[in-house]
């Protein structure tokens, strides 16, 4: 039986009087692919931020590989071997593609090994031609790809991705799907996503958020055909 | 009892002068998120404008309350057009350019007015509370700064310009959404902020005298007050001035004015460590 890599217990996040995440319990096994979906304001992004340490939950606990990480700093969580990519592309604009990826690899390798690792990731993502270009000069899709490279370079066992496909062309989305599937060979992946097309192509388990709670959790196909979920997405009261 | 009254007046005066010193900076910072490091020199310019006007035979109150704000407001308008308008959105650059401007102004003051202490004598006679004598001018400063805060509140609450300003303080793009050119708003804000700095400098000049480098003493205090005040303009000004003024005077009386100053600075460090977004980020939220 595969080990549980991510688990939350009654995760709750309140902002003033608003309960953004309400008593959410998730469980993720090693190398599992999981998409978190839901309409705007459903709490999936807030939940994501609680997982990666950007927010400290008001209540409840988070466990990574059995270790409680509630209230940890993002860098401590990342240092466990968790790869994180935020919604807005977050890269080091003034540095080259190689330097960006090298830095990610450097956290878990010495200088030399990090360079080899960076070369390897660049080759896998076909970033070779732009390896020495500054990120600030790249197009949006390329930057997203580099950011995935940054995530991969650390050899994570858990990857947290917030809307990786946003703003990409169909081609790029397809390539992104491949990369993510490749990641699941070594890591569990959590994706927060809007794009149903993309989620369907990943064919994964989906957790549906609604008003801060988990509405249902099942395979994407069954979720998509569920009338309640459809109502939620169409804006009707469930 | 008399002593308590004297101390009360001194504390109120300290609070009022802090609010007065900081008002111009607060307006510019609140609306434009620009720290004008030449603020202190704008104040000194107001002081010089007053002294010059008095020297030319203008009534001292007219010089302080009308001439100085006009002169400095106009000056602010000019430098905004020449320098700052090219730098919006580049916060650090704006700060540095304003620092450069402050050095230029100090240099210019030295060349024009000479590097000596000048001043005018206070226009209000001493005042006695029981057995104690007190500088009557303190009351004038307290009144001016109360009127100033009330006026700011009234403008923000009750006028269309205030509405636009409130919008702009919330979100930079709000004003343009309301059909106003941000360029013009910035220009006017800067001019108004400068005029307030000029007023503050003019009103304080008779008390402390002027040297070209006097601005440095003001800018640090104003900077700290504005940042510690936080997002709300009037409530922030009032609460931060109140807090720092109290701390300052408490230690000034107890030990010495220097310890009072140091206590103010230490209080600022502690306050910002605890409330990095300023007092009004936690208290008085939603107030103006």
């Amino acid at each position, binding site marked *: 039986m595969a080990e549980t890599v991510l688990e939350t217990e009654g995760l709750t996040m309140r902002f003033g009087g608003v309960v953004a995440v309400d008593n959410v319990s998730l469980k993720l096994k090693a190398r599992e692919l999981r998409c978190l979906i839901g309409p705007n304001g459903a709490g999936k992004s807030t939940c994501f931020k609680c997982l*990666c340490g950007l927010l400290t939950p008001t209540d409840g606990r988070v466990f990574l590989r059995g270790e409680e990480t509630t209230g940890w700093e*993002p*860098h*401590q969580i*990342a*240092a466990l071997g*968790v790869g*994180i990519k*935020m919604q807005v592309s*977050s*890269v*080091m*604009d*003034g*540095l080259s593609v190689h*330097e960006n990826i*090298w*830095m*990610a690899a*450097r*956290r878990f390798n010495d*200088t030399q090994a*990090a360079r080899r690792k960076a070369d390897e990731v660049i080759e896998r993502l076909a970033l070779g031609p732009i390896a020495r270009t*500054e990120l*600030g*000069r790249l197009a949006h899709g390329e930057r997203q790809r580099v950011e995935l490279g*940054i995530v991969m370079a*650390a050899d994570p066992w858990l990857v947290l991705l917030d809307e990786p496909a946003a703003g990409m062309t169909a081609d790029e989305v397809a390539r992104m799907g491949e990369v993510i599937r490749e990641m699941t060979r070594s890591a569990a992946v959590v994706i927060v996503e809007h794009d149903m097309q993309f989620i369907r192509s990943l064919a994964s388990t989906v957790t549906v958020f609604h008003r801060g709670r988990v509405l249902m959790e099942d395979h994407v196909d069954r979720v998509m055909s569920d009338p309640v979920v459809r109502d939620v997405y169409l804006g009707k009261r469930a | 009892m008399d002593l308590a009254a004297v101390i009360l007046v001194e504390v109120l005066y300290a609070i009022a002068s802090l609010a007065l010193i900081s008002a111009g900076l607060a307006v510019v910072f609140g609306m434009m998120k620009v*720290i004008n490091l030449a603020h202190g020199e704008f104040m000194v310019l107001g002081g010089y404008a007053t002294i010059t006007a008095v020297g030319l035979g203008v009534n001292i109150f007219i010089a302080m309350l009308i001439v100085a704000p006009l002169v400095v407001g106009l000056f602010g308008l000019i430098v905004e057009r020449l*320098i700052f308008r*090219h*730098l919006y959105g580049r*916060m*650090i650059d704006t700060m*540095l*350019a304003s*620092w*450069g401007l402050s*050095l*230029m*102004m*100090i*240099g*210019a003051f*030295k*060349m024009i007015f000479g590097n000596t202490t000048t001043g005018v004598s206070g226009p209000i006679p001493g005042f006695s509370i029981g057995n104690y004598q007190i500088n009557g001018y303190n009351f004038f400063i307290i009144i001016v700064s109360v009127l100033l805060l009330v006026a700011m509140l009234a403008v923000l609450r009750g006028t269309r310009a205030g509405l636009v300003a409130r919008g702009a303080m919330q979100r930079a793009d709000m004003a343009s959404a309301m059909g106003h050119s941000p360029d013009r708003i910035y220009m006017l804000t800067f001019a108004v902020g400068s005029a307030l700095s000029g007023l503050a400098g003019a009103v304080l000049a008779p008390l402390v005298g002027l040297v070209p480098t006097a601005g*440095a003493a003001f800018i*640090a205090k104003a*900077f*700290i007050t504005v*940042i510690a005040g936080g997002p709300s303009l009037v409530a922030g000004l009032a609460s931060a001035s109140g807090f720092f003024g109290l701390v300052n005077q408490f230690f000034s009386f107890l030990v010495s004015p*220097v310890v009072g100053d*140091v206590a103010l*600075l*230490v209080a*600022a*460090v502690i306050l*910002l*460590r605890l409330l*990095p977004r300023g007092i009004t980020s936690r208290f008085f939220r939603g107030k103006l």
Partner: protein
Amino acid sequence: MRGDARRDTAFILIAGVVLIFFMPLLIDTHVLTLLIAYGMLALSLGLIWGFGGVLCFGQAAFFGLGAYTFAVAGINLGESTLPVILAVLVPAVFALALGAMMFYGRLGDVYLAVITLVVTLILFRWINSTAGPEYTIGVARLGGFNGIPGFPILNVPGRPELMIWGETLYYVAAVSLLVVFLLVTWLLRSSFGRIAVGIRENEERVSLLGFDIRARKTILFAIGAAIAGLAGALYATWAEVVTPTLFSLQQSAEIIIWCIVGGLGTRFGPILGAAALAYLKFALGQQAIIDNMFVLGLVLVLFVLFLPRGLAPELARGWHWLAGSRRRPARRRRAPRAEVSDG
């Protein structure tokens, strides 16, 4: 990359040695020594601001702390070797404490500026009010506004009677600047330096990579303070007096201006900016027609408006143009790169 590093080091060494022997032909060594102390001070801010993205409004505090430590320790110990070491350590430890307080408190840029500025003011105020006889450290009177005159100046280690001043002090200062420059170069090439640049570029990203940015910024801040402290010790032995004005806002302002004018994100830029502006100030101090504050201010405004990347990148472009290589495309402003071959 390794070859690059070796070539860069060799180049710095050769250019440095040439300058050390060449500059005295142009400028009096007494003035040059001051320019060197200022250059080192500018380099310290250039390191933490240009490469670490930490804009410190109070770099003068570390400079003053270094100078005062040197003076106070010198009076107590009667020689200068340990005082020099202390002049580096004391500001560094102070910066560690201050940095930890700021960076672990997750303060934004503006707040960082306010805190550093306020701490400098506190130090200035405090040291300015220590004229009374009760303020002594060991046998050294702090002296308040007077400052501390008459402390032992730099001497040959272990030989307090062999004092280093005048021409010799210039060579000692110049070599220490060269050594510090090489250390900074090495630091920037190391992983620590490259990650520091990453932090400047995108703090959140680097922390999401698993690096503790608070600790790293604190350490970088302390390294900058240590260099500023050494510059302070050099200044003290040169000036033969330390006064509270070392802690003044004016001094802090000048350091920032040097960095801007010289060029942020380069190692040589701040030194160049410091030397050029300090010399300009010195030259302007000789005449009374135009006030030097006015000129400094004008220079700052013009640079921010028209040459925000400073002199060094322009000089580098000129150099590459002269050398016939135009491969270097114009860099994006505000994002200077980590390596600089023009340094």
